[in-house]
């Protein structure tokens, strides 16, 4: 079933030979594409490279996009898969987590609440890529469960269950981390 998506008109222009129109789509979707890549890779430089690579791949395969979903959903799926491929290729490099990710700017406050947020982000690194990405997209409130399911390539019900379980697991990890922290004081 074809769906209505304002981006489809832009795709027609690009396929008609107007390459520069693609810059409009890159501008529009780069933030979420980068966020998805970052959640999978947890390294800013690699995430940027993977997101750029995904945009190039999407461009090369524009003609084969069947328009049965939104362009953004199709693109984010390419981003997710490209980031996963990067992660598999360079797995050993990712044990050194990017410092900017481990302690996000919002969690650097000295307030106890912010410290707890920092621990939640640390605990998130222990989740698998799909759960981490699903949780992030779910909390950005820009994506429906169906869209998240299409990006990650899992059924919507499975995504819902995985989000619920991942949250419970984060709560447990948070408790463990806080107890470890208390023991070291």
């Amino acid at each position: 079933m074809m769906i209505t998506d304002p981006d489809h008109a832009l795709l027609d222009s690009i396929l008609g030979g107007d390459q520069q129109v693609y810059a409009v789509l890159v501008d529009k979707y780069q933030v979420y594409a980068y966020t998805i890549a970052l959640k999978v890779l947890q390294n800013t430089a690699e995430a940027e490279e993977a997101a750029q690579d995904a945009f190039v791949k999407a461009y090369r395969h524009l003609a084969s996009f069947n328009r049965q979903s939104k362009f953004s959903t199709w693109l984010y799926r390419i981003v997710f898969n490209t980031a996963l491929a990067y992660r598999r290729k360079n797995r050993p490099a990712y044990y050194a987590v990017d410092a900017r990710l481990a302690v996000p700017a919002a969690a650097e406050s000295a307030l106890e609440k912010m410290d707890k947020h920092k621990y939640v982000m640390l605990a998130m690194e222990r989740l698998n890529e799909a759960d981490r990405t699903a949780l992030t997209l779910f909390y950005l409130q820009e994506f429906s469960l169906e869209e998240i399911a299409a990006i990650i390539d899992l059924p919507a019900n499975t995504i819902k269950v995985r989000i619920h379980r991942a949250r419970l697991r984060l709560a447990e990890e948070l408790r463990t981390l806080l107890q470890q922290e208390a023991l070291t004081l």
Partner: protein
Amino acid sequence: MKKKDIAALEDALSRYPDGSQEKAERAWLEDLQAQDAGVQQRMEDLDTVHQALQAQGIARPSPHFTQRVMAALAPLPQTSVPPARRVWRSVALLTGVLAVTGIIMTWLSSDMFTGVTVQQVAVPYADQWNWSVAVKGKWLLYPIIAINMVLGWALLDRAILKPLFQHRRLHQA
């Protein structure tokens, strides 16, 4: 706590941060929270997780992201034959296929093959065999007509209808 209750508690806790619970379940959880310090602790931790996830926000790539992507793009491959010439070539091919089908059907309808059987074709050493197969000539032509029809339909779809609809979509956009 019974095993059944533990499972129910896990279910209720998994839904708790979204507030998507039913009234009865929420009341039960609130009761448990008041009685059990462990449940209260878990609910507080879930609140913290929920708030932290809400606060995480989006990440932004470097300012030159778009320029880098655009610089990495190669022009989309263009077909070597111009679209109009491609369509005319396909029309000629399709006309040929339909002409062949038409000629065969005309032969069949004019009873040209009545009485012609494959048995009449001279086959070396055929007289030494104890068996023979008589196939009416026009039966052999039916599969040829069918193959032509399929070929004609595929040609019509791939070479004419598809480019036509793509062209119309491009121009409507």
